[in-house]
């Protein structure tokens, strides 16, 4: 009898094993199938709001898509994929697939967003996963939202799986969205193919990506330094930071500017491209010359001057010896560790990462300054597409492509600039991104009032459900942010909920910085090439980028003489650079001529 049992056991073991393997495989293939969130009880905010607006949908108003003006009579599903940012925080028990916003949109608009897969978006994981999806020819979800490099967007468009959204936009986009898009005549340029608009822009606050100079104000005051007007002034400041022991620890362990150009000389933080701008070019992008033709900034003669200045900065210790092996974030750590006294970045740096500086160096003070001018009085800084921050593509086979626009419209109308007394006046949901104190005032500080923000252990950050939205931050009206900041900076009283919130949340240094950015908005140098990769770029980009980055680094580190620049440029031109320049100008002619 014993043997039978053993045999039975081994067989059932095998069976169990293969079953569980199959289950694993199934899970992997199916991605993260959303848990049945519909059946969950207690969708607090959603349920309440639903009860409030409890009018029965009259069938007369329902259009051919099943929309009654406020809601889909029969809920529709939008499938998508998601890269979860590091600034997304969740209450315990909530996930990307099951949260207060997801429920709200399902209950109130009848739009159920489901995820084919979700990935934590560190080290470009989302981009990599999208590209792998493309390379394996996987079926795309209804909607893909992407924020990042244009190349990935172009690859998605070229996959041929997405639709021309032009008609949808004209028909379904709300007023606010249309006005925002119209602010910039070039908005559609990057995604236009044969006159067809292939992706919807995600709008963002204009001028939010513009650069300014941040200095350690406590060091400036201690050493009695004045605001730098020119690069020469700035060099004097850096010299003082390096040699006059601004942190007062008796050691020469401080440097001037925090920067990191391991990946690019056109960084989004710890930026160094502004120094090239001071000589009249910007590296890594296509600038427009006096003759109207586009040329690549990295091989411009002005870049040579910038490099030779950078080399002297490295020799004198103004920038870290490790700048060439640091990226934007690790470069910024030089500043937030209290080692460097300057960094070039965007107006919102006080929100992140300057919080780390205050943790590491108690009592540190920082202040924004205009970017200094070069020897000929030139100032130049990068600017993104002024009001676009991301793109949304809709699958050709999507059943309800217009649902995305309705989703976005909803946030434009109710969230982007809410009226006093309206639903989202204080934030998305009580107990998440806001709470009411007993005396009726609104708080957004979970560290101070932990009881008002239940089910949430991490007290240092606010849970902001709006980030869970398909459209990144719900919706943003491009001009609103800058207008409000200017109003606040010039002493205006905040009136609308948005203005009050901004005044409450934004640090004074941030508001001041935005004013500097707008005062200096003429220094913006646009990247004029917004098209898909050209044929030669596809083949030669790797080689050409390597040529440039290697020569740049070696010149700055003194491993090659400065004249290596000319050799590199000659090499660049004959290895395909000339060809690419022609192609880029052809694109520009055809795109702007139309």
């Amino acid at each position: 009898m014993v043997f039978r049992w053993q045999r039975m056991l081994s067989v059932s073991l095998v069976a169990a094993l293969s079953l569980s393997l199959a289950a694993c495989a199934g899970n992997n293939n199916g991605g993260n199938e959303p848990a049945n969130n519909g059946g969950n009880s207690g969708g607090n905010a959603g349920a309440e709001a639903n009860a409030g607006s409890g009018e029965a949908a009259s069938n007369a108003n329902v259009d051919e898509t099943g929309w009654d003006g406020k809601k889909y009579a029969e809920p529709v599903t939008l499938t998508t994929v998601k890269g979860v940012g590091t600034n997304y925080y969740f209450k315990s028990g909530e996930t990307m697939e099951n949260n207060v916003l997801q429920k709200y949109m399902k209950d109130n608009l009848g739009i159920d967003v489901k995820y084919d897969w979700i990935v934590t978006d560190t080290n470009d994981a989302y981009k990599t996963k999208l590209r792998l999806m493309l390379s394996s020819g996987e079926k795309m979800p209804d909607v893909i939202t992407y924020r990042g490099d244009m190349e990935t967007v172009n690859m998605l468009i070229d996959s041929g799986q997405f639709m021309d959204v032009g008609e949808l936009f004209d028909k379904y986009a709300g007023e606010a969205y249309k006005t925002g898009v119209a602010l910039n005549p070039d908005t559609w340029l990057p995604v236009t193919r044969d006159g067809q608009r292939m992706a919807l822009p995600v709008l963002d606050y204009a001028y939010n990506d513009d650069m300014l100079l941040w200095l350690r104000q406590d060091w400036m005051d201690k050493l009695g330094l004045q605001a730098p007007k020119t690069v020469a002034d700035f060099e004097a400041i850096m010299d003082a930071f390096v040699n006059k022991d601004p942190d007062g620890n008796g050691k020469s362990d401080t440097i001037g500017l925090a920067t990191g150009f391991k990946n690019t000389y056109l960084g989004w933080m710890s930026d160094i491209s502004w120094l090239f701008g001071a000589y009249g070019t910007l590296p890594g992008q296509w600038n427009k010359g006096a003759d109207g033709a586009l040329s690549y900034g990295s091989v411009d003669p002005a870049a040579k001057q910038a490099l030779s200045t950078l080399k002297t900065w490295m020799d004198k210790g103004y920038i870290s010896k490790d700048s060439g092996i640091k990226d934007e974030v690790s470069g910024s750590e030089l500043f937030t560790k209290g080692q460097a006294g300057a960094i070039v970045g965007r107006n919102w740096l006080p929100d992140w990462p300057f919080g780390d500086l205050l943790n590491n160096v108690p009592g540190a003070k920082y202040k924004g300054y205009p970017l200094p001018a070069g020897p000929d009085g030139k100032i130049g800084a990068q600017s993104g597409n002024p009001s676009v921050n991301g793109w949304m593509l809709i699958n050709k086979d999507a059943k309800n492509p217009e649902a995305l626009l309705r989703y976005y419209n909803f946030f434009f109308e109710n969230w982007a600039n809410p009226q006093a007394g309206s639903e989202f006046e204080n934030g998305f949901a009580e107990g998440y991104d806001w709470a009411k104190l007993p005396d009726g005032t609104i708080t957004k500080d979970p560290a101070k009032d932990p009881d008002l923000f239940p089910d949430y252990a991490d007290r240092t950050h606010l849970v902001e459900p709006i980030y869970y939205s398909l459209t990144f931050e719900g919706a943003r009206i491009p001009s609103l942010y800058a207008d409000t900041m200017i109003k606040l900076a010039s002493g205006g009283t905040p009136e609308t909920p948005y203005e009050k919130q901004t005044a409450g949340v934004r640090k004074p240094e941030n508001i001041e910085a935005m004013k500097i950015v707008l005062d200096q908005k003429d220094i913006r140098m646009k990247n004029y090439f917004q098209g898909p990769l050209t044929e030669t770029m596809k083949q030669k980009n790797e080689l050409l980028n390597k040529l440039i980055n290697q020569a740049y680094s070696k010149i700055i580190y003194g491993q090659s003489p400065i004249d290596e620049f000319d050799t590199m440029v000659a090499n660049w031109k004959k290895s395909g650079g000339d060809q690419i320049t022609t192609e880029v100008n052809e694109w520009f002619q055809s795109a702007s001529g139309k």
Partner: protein
Amino acid sequence: MGMSTTTEALTPVRSGVKAKAGSFLRRTWPLHLMLLPAVILQFLFGYLPLGGLVIAFKDFKPYDGIWGSKWVGLEHFKFMFEYPDSKQVIINTALIAGFKIVCSIIVPFVFALLLNEVRRSSVKRTVQTLVYLPYFISWVFLGGILNDMLASDGIVNSVLKSWFGLEPILFLGDGTWFRIVVVVSDVWQQFGFGTIVYLAALAGVNPSLYEAAEVDGATRWQQTLHVTIPSLAPIVIVVGTLALGNILNAGFDQIFNLYNPLVYDKGDIIDTFVYRTGILNGQYSFGTAVGIFKSVVGFVLIVIGYRIAYKLADYKIF
């Protein structure tokens, strides 16, 4: 006890060759069944994707699919050999991988010999576990740690400065130092694993050989020289032969987490190069072509190495 009952019970008393073959299967089918998931997985993830190699000979466009893409013959291979950087990248790869292979044979071998002489088994085991630990740490972490340690104001340079008065060395910004760092850190990470292999082999050496040597008056050193090392030779040759196949694998995750434009000329390897062209610039076909090239070179080297091993050590793996 249970085992013997099973075997007995599962062996039916029958005669004849045919019946024997049949009974063998009947006896062992649960074992075969247990093997099945592994076979299926291997087929699904090991063999089926091999079909994708065909894109190396096509101009692969993801949306056209593997079959819809145009044939281009050997175009991508031609492009690879005409690419100006190819030679340098291949040399870098072979050099770095070569040094890694040699060091990853010698270091664990010597270390295992030394560890084997340690009398106290608690010390032996602790050391063995400690050196094995780094094997489990991902290069993403190790890369970050090394970046900090080797920075111009990092711990290594601080020590060099305060003890020897040396100027800071840019370990990760200088091609030659970069190669050294890559090889040394790789050996440090990997040698615990190799040590275990050799220790296992050492445990298998026939004790009577040592006894005989002792009777003949051999010293400890002579025993090592004439008993231990010859006994380990076959396993060294096997490990070396198999490692030859990796001559063009210099370790993507390690280099990727450590390199930067300053060391492109001496540190850029085939895999990082393929990553930049293949994934970042979407040249999937080209990436696959390079992959095939690597595999073919690796395969040829293994075959040659195997032949040599057979001749020298009379060792057969297959």
